[in-house]
Each structure stands twice: as structure tokens, then as C-alpha cells.
């Protein structure tokens, strides 16, 4: 067959001629996404425009944007509070996790440091252990009366801390638990990217008279700027939708001070008088805000360019 002459093949591959086989390969994934994402999503949007709830379980009907209007003016907790708490949770978490992970990676990336393999294995622990369980462990550790942390602080004469008892501290406690769960991931990612910076660049920065952190600032940060932005933004999206940590630790209490959009959505759909329409509306609002954030961030970081 003439088709198989080396020159033709080379040309064929390089030119990436259109080939319908490509669709065959992506068809299964598209089918699964249609079945499990698009169909439920379309119904979710529809439900958010109805009064589908326990009170109207079999006779729900289209009511237009009434759910959204109600959420926008009048529901308690107010939407602004929920959105603020969601930002508090996701921004607070991501800033803390990302910077802690980066600093730790810097510390471990010093030339000639011994024992990095040992440290790295230890730091794997929080990431390697299922979060579903470690969150429950932290819940016990931070209990006000019986928790070990307060007992331990008591030895040094430090008064017991209301980790999850006060609105002012409970969100911070959630973020701290999340830091423990997630810093290994960021440390690993940043370690990998710091290692991709050639060692000679550091050395020449040293020769120019920069100290350890000076050379990081001069050499590593400019090179890794885009990677850091990328990891941080995806971490932000992930934290925004992170369900288990706030759900298992406080599920909104005290009051509504630790509800974020996703846990509040779950609460609306699963309390003893479930309102699935409202839950869908809250989920849609969460998605819309998320997409707006991604669009804005993309203007500045061009993170979507990973696609090409």
C-alpha cells in the first residue's frame, strides 16, 4: 500500500489530519458526562425554577425565578452572609495552604539538606489518610471539654479554647483542620516545581550576592509564577466545593456561622422538610459565582491557556 510509505506517514502524523477515530475515543466519556452530568444538571436548573419540595412532592410546578428572588431578598441566613462565609472558607484555606506548602517546599529544597526523604514520607501522612476519617479524628481532638488539644494546652495553663463553639473561632478552626489535611499536596506540588528550576540559576543568583530568600525571589518566583497561580486557582475551586470538612466538623453551627454554599445546599435538600427546589437554586448560585470568579481570574492569569 502506498499509504504506508514513510514519507506519507510522517506527513500524515505531523499535519494531524482530521480523523473521525478521534470521536470514537472520546465518545464514551462524552456519553458518561451526558448521562451523569448534563441530564441531572438540566433537571437541576429546571427544579430550581419549580416549587419541588416535600410540601409539593408530587404536584410541583414551574414558578419562574421566585426561588432566586426569595434567596436574593429575604431568606435567612442572607445570601451575602453565605457567600461571604464561602469566600472566607475557600480564600482563607487556599492562602494558608498554598503559602505554607510553598515555604515548606523551599525549606526542603535547600541544597545539601539531609533527611528530606524522611520528612517527605512523614508529610505524606495527612494526605494519605482518608480525609473522611481524619476529619472525625480532629473533631474529637478539638472538642471543648474532652478534646486532647484543650487538655494539652491546659498543662501550660492556657485556658480552654472554644474551637467550634463560637462563631468567631469556628471558621478559623475549620480552616486550620483543612490546612492539616491539604498542606502535603501543596508541598509535593511545589517541591516538584522547585526541582524543575535548574540549580545553576540559584548558584548564579548567589554569586550576584543574593541570600537564600533573595535568590528564591529573583529566580524561582518569576519562573514559577504561572504554576503557582494555576495550583492556587484550582485549589480554590476545589476548596469552594469541598464538602466533607465543613459538613462533618460543624455542619453550619454554631448558628449558621460555618455554613458555606455547598453545605447549605445539602442542608436544604436533606433536612426533615426537604426543599429540593431551593437546594437546586442555591447550587446554581454557587456555580454561577464560581464561574464568574474563574472568568475574572482568567483575565489576569490566562490560566485557561493550559487548554491549548
Amino acid at each position: 500500500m502506498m499509504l504506508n510509505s514513510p514519507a506519507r506517514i510522517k506527513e500524515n502524523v505531523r499535519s494531524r489530519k482530521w480523523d473521525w477515530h478521534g470521536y470514537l475515543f472520546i465518545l464514551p466519556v462524552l456519553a458518561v458526562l451526558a448521562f451523569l452530568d448534563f441530564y441531572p444538571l438540566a433537571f437541576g436548573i429546571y427544579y430550581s425554577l419549580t416549587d419541588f419540595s416535600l410540601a409539593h412532592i408530587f404536584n410541583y410546578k414551574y414558578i419562574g425565578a421566585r426561588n432566586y428572588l426569595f434567596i436574593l431578598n429575604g431568606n435567612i441566613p442572607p445570601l451575602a452572609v453565605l457567600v461571604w462565609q464561602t469566600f472566607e472558607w475557600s480564600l482563607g484555606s487556599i492562602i494558608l495552604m498554598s503559602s505554607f506548602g510553598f515555604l515548606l517546599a523551599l525549606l526542603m529544597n535547600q541544597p545539601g539538606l539531609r533527611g528530606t526523604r524522611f520528612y517527605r514520607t512523614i508529610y505524606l501522612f495527612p494526605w494519605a489518610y482518608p480525609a473522611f476519617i481524619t476529619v472525625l479524628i480532629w473533631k474529637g481532638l478539638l472538642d471543648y471539654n474532652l478534646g486532647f488539644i484543650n487538655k494539652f494546652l491546659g498543662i501550660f495553663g492556657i485556658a480552654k479554647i472554644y474551637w467550634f463553639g463560637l462563631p468567631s473561632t469556628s471558621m478559623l478552626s475549620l480552616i486550620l483542620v483543612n490546612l492539616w489535611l491539604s498542606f502535603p499536596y501543596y508541598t509535593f506540588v511545589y517541591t516538584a516545581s522547585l526541582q524543575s528550576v535548574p540549580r545553576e540559576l540559584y548558584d548564579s543568583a548567589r554569586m550576584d550576592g543574593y541570600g537564600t530568600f533573595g535568590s528564591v525571589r529573583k529566580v524561582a518566583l518569576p519562573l514559577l509564577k504561572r504554576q503557582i497561580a494555576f495550583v492556587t486557582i484550582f485549589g480554590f475551586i476545589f476548596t469552594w466545593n469541598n464538602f466533607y470538612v465543613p459538613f462533618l466538623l460543624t455542619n453550619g453551627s454554631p448558628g449558621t456561622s460555618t455554613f458555606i454554599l455547598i453545605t447549605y445546599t445539602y442542608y436544604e435538600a436533606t433536612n426533615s422538610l426537604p426543599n429540593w427546589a431551593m437546594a437546586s437554586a442555591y447550587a446554581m448560585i454557587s456555580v454561577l459565582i464560581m464561574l464568574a470568579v474563574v472568568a475574572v481570574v482568567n483575565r489576569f492569569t490566562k490560566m485557561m491557556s493550559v487548554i491549548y
Partner: protein
Amino acid sequence: MDTTQGGSPTPPKNRLTLIIAIAVVVVVVASGIGLALYYSGSSHKTTSTGASKVTITVWDSSASGGESTAFNNSLAAFEAKYTNVTVVVTRGVAVGSSNFATDATSHKAPNVYRDSSDNAGALYSAGLVVNLSNYLGTSFTSNFTTGTINDWTLNGALYGVPVNTNGIALYYNKNLVPNAPTTINQMIQDAKNVTAMGKGYLGLPYAIGATWGYRFAAWYPAFGGELFNSSGYPMLNSSHDISAMNFVWNWSKTYGINTVGLSSMSDEQAYFEAGKSAFMLDGPWDQSTYQKALGNNLSVCAIPYDSQTGKWPMPLWGSIGYMVSNSAASGANASQIWASVQFVKSMTNFLTQVSLFQNAGDFPSLTSVGTYISAHPGVDPLVSGWVAQEQHAQKFPNIPQMAYYWSAFHIGATNLEQNSSSVTPTDAMNQIEAYIISELKANNVPYESAQSSFGPGIAQLVLIGELTESTTFARVV
């Protein structure tokens, strides 16, 4: 690359890939459609078989091991008696009223479900539960205490059969308080005396901001208040209910017998079990825990009355029971509903309730079992305290709007506790009222016409809600 391996010409292989791919897609699509068709038809097939063999599904939410033992024994007795009925039991975490509702959306709810009377009331209002008045006459219901039957009656319909009854009373530590207080003032004084014993002692710890108002509800009647009026409208910001909040708030604010910032009910229990607090407001389900900690020093009495007004605090006196889902919720046919009713009767009969009392300490809903217990006082030495409390109890509201009280109370009480410099008990009660109304609106209640599937209680609320909405919201915003 290895040249010896793949020398064969490519087109045939290409065609093979194509054929396989098309075959896979066709098979997947066809089997999907086939499956859907098969099962959409099958639900009709199974229901049309005769009444000779019946299968019913049951969700059992028995909490403790003792309750499960009693359930299993009664189940065995039922299966021995009705050999043509097969019972499929589901237990555990997935058993809850929200899962019941989710399953009902696709007509897959269980035939028989066990829950508290208030959750069941919401399910009945939603049109998911059989009105048992058509199956069980007064000759059956008259065997039960009036209170428990009231708990399971909404708009004249009996929507379930009670299996037990419960509420809270006042536990006290006889080592610190030798005699039960007979008036509210004496209770406060006893608590003050215990607090005065020194560091670590606290007379009456109550984690107001960390709880959901179940136990708190006892105080509204002591000041002449109520949760909902007879039309089902929330009364939480009435002057009576505000007085109740003022009173409890003073425990920490004025009397010093409580402290601000307890993070959960287990913090209260830690005081009581360590012998550091005089009183504990709690139900019979924790009695064995306290007995273990305090031994013979543990006693229980009715929450004392106000000697000036003569009014009694009245705890919510609720009930767990069994309900039968209608065909809309579970797809049940007439014989399945009949079998379910027989099952419910069997699970609430004399032997079951005696077994529940002996194994799990559950108080009975049958008058005859109450008599039996009084005749056998050895099983529970504290039973007289509970009987005394039952004389001063309020009906556990079973209208759907009750479901919003819990979160509302939690939000208001937390706000009061955390921001006490700027928030007064009056503000907190206004907030609780506003939250309930907000939730009722969010669930489209005020927008519905009177033909809503919810009962007339809500229909009236619609009118009131429309009238008061503007004034209420002006306060919140």
C-alpha cells in the same frame, strides 16, 4: 522500534476497530433502552399478583441495642403469625425522613417507617402517609394514652401508631440536692448553693447557644406562652415567650448558675456525671449513662412550677411510632397496605412495649403497659419521677412548620449568647420568629392557595403570613 512485530497491512485492522466500536455503542444504547423499558413495565407486573403472597418493606430506626432486641422478637412473632407476609427490614444510617422523602419522589418509599411524631406529621401533610383512622377504630386507639394518640393525630386523622412516649424531666444529684425542688425559685436557689461550693461547680449548666430548643420549649408554658397558636402561626416573639428567654438567660447573666459558651450538650453532661452540677435537663434515653456515673445519688423529678403564677413548665412530650406509606409514596397495593397495618399493630402491641421497657427503658404508649410497669417498679426505680412529669407536658406540635423551629432557635440563641453586649433576649426571640416565617416563605407556603397539599393549618397561615410579613421583615432588616 521493533520492526519484526507489526508488519501486517493496516486497513483490515482499521475496519475491525470501526466494527467493534460501532458494536459497542449499539449494545450499550440498546441495553440501556431495553433495561429502561423492562423496568418501567415491571412495577405494574409485581403489584397485580393476588393477595396470597405479600412482601412489605420496613425501615427500622431503632436506636439502641435494647430496642433492636425488642424489634427482632416482635418481628419473629409477626412472621410466625402471618406466614404469607414477607418482611424486608432496612436498618441504620440511611433511615431518615429526608431519605424517605427522596425515595417517595420516585414512589419507592418503604411500606412501613418508624420515626418521631413530628417528622411523621410533616410526611403526612405532604400526602405520603396513610390515614389509619380508616383502618383502626376507636376500639383500638382507646387502648393508648390520650397524649400519645394526640401526638399522632393531625386534623382529625390518625397517621401512625405510637410505640412509646418520651420527654425531658429534671435529673438531680441527691448528693448535692437532697430533696427535689418543689418551686422554680427553690430550683434556682439549690443551683446557686451548688455553684457557691467553689471552683468547678456549676448549679444548672445549659448550653443554650449550642442546642436546638427542644429542652428549652418546656419554659414557654411556664410563662403562659406557646410555640404555635391554634392556627399554626409561630408565637415565638410573644411577650410570654420573651419572658421565658429572659428567665433562662438570667441563669448565666444574673444568677451565675449557668455559664456562657458551653459548646454542646455533652459539656453539660460532663458536669453532671462528674458530680459538679446539681441538675440536668434530659430525657430517659440517657438515664443509664447517669446511673453508671452517679449510682444511687441519681434521681429525677418533674420540673417544678412557678409558685407565684401557678404555671408549670411543660416539656414537649413526644412519641415514636410506626406509619404506613400510601401508594403514591411507595407504590403499595391494597394487600400491601393491609399487611403493613397488621405489622404496625403487631409492633406496638402489649408484649412489644413491655419488652421495649425492659430492654431499652422506653416508656409505653399503651395504658395497660403503664399499669403493668407501675405494678413492677423494680425495673426502673425512677419511674415515679417520669410519671409526675408526664402530668405536666405539652403536645409535641406535629404541624409541618414545627420543623423550622429547631434551626430558628439555634440561630437566635447562638446570636444571643455570642453577641450578648448588643443582642437582648427580645431581639433573639424576634429573630427566631423571623427565621421561621422566612423558612415558611422559602418553602412557598405563603404563596400557595388553600388547595395546597398541606393541611388547613397552613392555609390559614398563608393569610396571616401575608398580613404580618411586612412588619416582621421590617424588624429583621
